[in-house]
């Protein structure tokens, strides 16, 4: 078989397995992610760009494990946690996951509200409509068509690249900053670094990615392609983050470094540089929020039902899988609902979700490494020793960063500046 033919076969399989890795990576750039990247660019310009490459590496290491476990066992992460660590552990993990994801969902709907307010649409119109759209997407559709819509939504992230190009930032400086690590003994800078790592990896991603790999029917046979998809997904995601930081560095930091309070504020700051840059950035924010708001409730309901043994799946109806659909519906209705309450302490809730995230992520990562090293589960696909060293290093760094972020958040909650 010629090289070209073999290459073509790989490409065909690659497109057949495309989905899980890309979608997970893209949803990771949600409203909260965009805010963190914007903040980094606005306050420190191009300087924090060097963190992106290591973040990509950390992401790839953890995501690859999920894809591998899904492909080898054909089981979701919550299934495996239940089977190997029992019901009580699963229940605690699921409870934390629901709380953490719920606050995330709120943040996404808040993102929808603020991005559409830039287009002068009242949140009392935009949020209910967005909630209805998200709900109907799953209840009225099938997984295959839902996934196609999501994959298409990934394309819209190009908006950020165009927005950044339109501002004409200092490309030379950004290229240089991407490879030159800079440490400053400055609380704000350290906070931003921790924030960048901390928001880049969330507990839901592990559950979503693995479940999506299983749902897609990927097996060890086409695992090689699946792994490439996961890696490409992470790189594209980091690419998008790069352009967001660069755009804000050029539009805000180069004018006058300052702190911003929301992603919508970052969009507004782009306005003097051209109407299109502003529109694209806002549209990107809307898309990211809506995309994440569609995935998170679904992923949460899936993980919980799988772990606790309730019927689940978009291919079943309301009557067959009541817990699944009720949980899904409640997450959306409540998540969207609280955004409409005028005096709701949204920022506090989002800070609180950082804390939940900080507790949950170490647990899940440790479970994952333990699961993937069980030969009765993974057979020849267990981690090699060298890979275990890398994995544990990644886990330790991620856990340290998340716990640090949690610490900073707790400080913020107790002693607001």
């Amino acid at each position, binding site marked *: 078989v010629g090289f070209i033919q073999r290459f073509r076969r790989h490409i065909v399989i690659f497109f057949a397995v495309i989905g899980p890795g890309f979608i997970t990576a893209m949803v990771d750039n949600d409203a909260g992610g965009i805010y963190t990247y914007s903040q980094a660019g606005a306050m420190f310009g191009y300087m924090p760009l060097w963190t992106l490459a290591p973040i990509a590496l950390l992401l790839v290491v953890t995501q690859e494990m999920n894809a591998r476990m899904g492909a080898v066992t*054909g*089981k979701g992460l919550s299934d495996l946690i239940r089977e190997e660590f029992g019901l009580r552990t699963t*229940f605690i993990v699921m409870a934390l996951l629901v709380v953490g994801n719920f606050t995330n969902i709120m943040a996404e709907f808040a993102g929808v509200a603020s991005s559409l307010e830039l287009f002068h649409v009242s949140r009392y119109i935009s949020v209910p409509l967005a909630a209805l759209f998200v709900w109907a997407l799953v209840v009225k559709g099938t997984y295959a068509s839902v996934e196609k819509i999501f994959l298409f939504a990934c394309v819209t992230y190009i908006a950020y690249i165009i927005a950044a190009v339109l501002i004409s930032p200092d490309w030379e400086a950004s290229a240089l900053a991407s490879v030159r690590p800079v440490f400053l003994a400055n609380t704000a800078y350290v906070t931003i670094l921790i924030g960048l790592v901390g928001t880049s990896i969330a507990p839901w991603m592990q559950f979503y990615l693995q479940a999506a790999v299983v749902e897609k029917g990927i097996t060890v046979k086409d695992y090689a392609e699946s792994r490439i998809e996961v890696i490409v997904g992470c790189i594209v995601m980091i690419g998008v983050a790069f352009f967001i930081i660069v755009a804000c560095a050029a539009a805000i930091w180069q004018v006058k470094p300052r702190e911003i309070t929301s992603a919508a504020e970052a969009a507004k700051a782009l306005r003097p540089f051209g109407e299109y840059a502003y529109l694209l950035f806002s549209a990107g924010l809307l898309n990211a929020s809506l995309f994440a708001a569609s995935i998170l409730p679904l992923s949460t309901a899936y993980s919980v039902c799988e772990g*606790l*043994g309730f019927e689940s799946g978009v291919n079943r109806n309301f009557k067959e899988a009541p817990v699944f659909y009720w949980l899904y519906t409640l997450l959306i209705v409540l998540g969207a609902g609280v955004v409409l309450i005028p005096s709701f302490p949204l920022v506090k809730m989002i800070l609180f979700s950082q804390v939940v995230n900080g507790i949950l992520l170490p647990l899940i990562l440790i479970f994952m490494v333990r699961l993937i090293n069980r030969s009765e589960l993974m057979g020849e696909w267990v981690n090699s020793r060298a890979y275990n060293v890398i994995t544990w290093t990644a886990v330790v760094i991620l856990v340290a960063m998340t716990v640090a972020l949690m610490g900073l958040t707790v400080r913020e909650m107790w002693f607001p500046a």
Partner: protein
Amino acid sequence: VAESLLFLTELMGLKVCDLKGRRIGRIKDAGIVPRVDPRRIDRFLVGGEWTWWMVRHDQVASITLDGIVLSDDHLTPYHEDEYMLRLVKDLLDQQIIDVDGRKVVRVTDVTFELRKANSHDVLLVREVDIGIRSIVRRLFQGIVPPRIVRRLQRGISPNSIRWDMCNIIEPDPQRRLRLNISHKALEEMHPADLADIVEELSHEDREAVFETLDSEVAAEALSEVEDTKTQANILESLEADRAADIIEEMAPDEAADVLSEMKESSSERILEEMDAEPKTDVEELLEFDEESAGGMMNNEFLTVADSASVGDALKAIKENEEQVDTLTTLFLHDADGRLSGALPIGRLLLAEGAIPLRRLASEDDVISVPVGERRDRVTELVDKYNLMALPVVDAHGRQVGSITADDIISVLRQG
């Protein structure tokens, strides 16, 4: 809950004392030996101070919520027993198939029936519990006294599956034999239900089910699995001769679809193992482009000469018994072997036996497509003329296959 019931969550951690009231340890697990008795708890595993002990069912005097009292002190240390199904280790939190409800469920708890036998207390497995009520029990197990847990769960409606309706899936064939696990009950299910179940299982469990099912049932279930890629994955995971047995039972067009989805090395290995006749059928179909009428059609169809009588046709149908379940249309050919007509089976039933078939077929030209016809044109024709079966012909007008309505439905569903 009556006192004659006990849950596995309650059994776990129960104190075990000997006749003189000395404490031996706490219950860690319980096992049944299906070859001896499919329901009775045969051994209790007791975690003592130094080691785990094994208590036989006939060494137990009484079992209550307050503890277990033994009637015999001759305990043996625990050792692995391949013939024992351990409820905590092998069953709890694992997936099993609910044959009655036709779905895959995860075991949260087990309910026992407490019975007296020769003044001994015996535990019999009664049902497997799933759902919220058993989750509550699991969460509070060991934290809150069992009697309070019983009160807590009272308001929640139970969700249980009778033990004889539970089908355990065991990937290891040796252990399947030792534990007396068969998947016979699955064979009674509708193939479509079985396919739904299989789609939910992990790769290993799928393999286990398809290894043991009767080839015919396996073939039927496999063709109900929606995604061709999943079908191919399942067959590729089996031994080649086993996969060949299953494929032989499938309709040739479906078999060809699955085989063309596989890597060439795998499909060749399976084809090698197949019997000559089904193999040629499938190989013929593999030649065609999947997107064409040739790729959609089935080359098993019934055709008789148009000069034959109704009686001859009925005889031909009887001789091709294996096709009768899906047979809707009888095709006719002229003296040169060219397709000349199509007759719905129903019409044969109303006609006199001696009438030549030519007279029954409609006067109009029979609708057919060449093997190379595009897929969307085929669906269009079937829809337009409301056909149950559309004949496919070669360059000489001779029939090579037929596309039936269910082929069209699968094409449309795949989008």
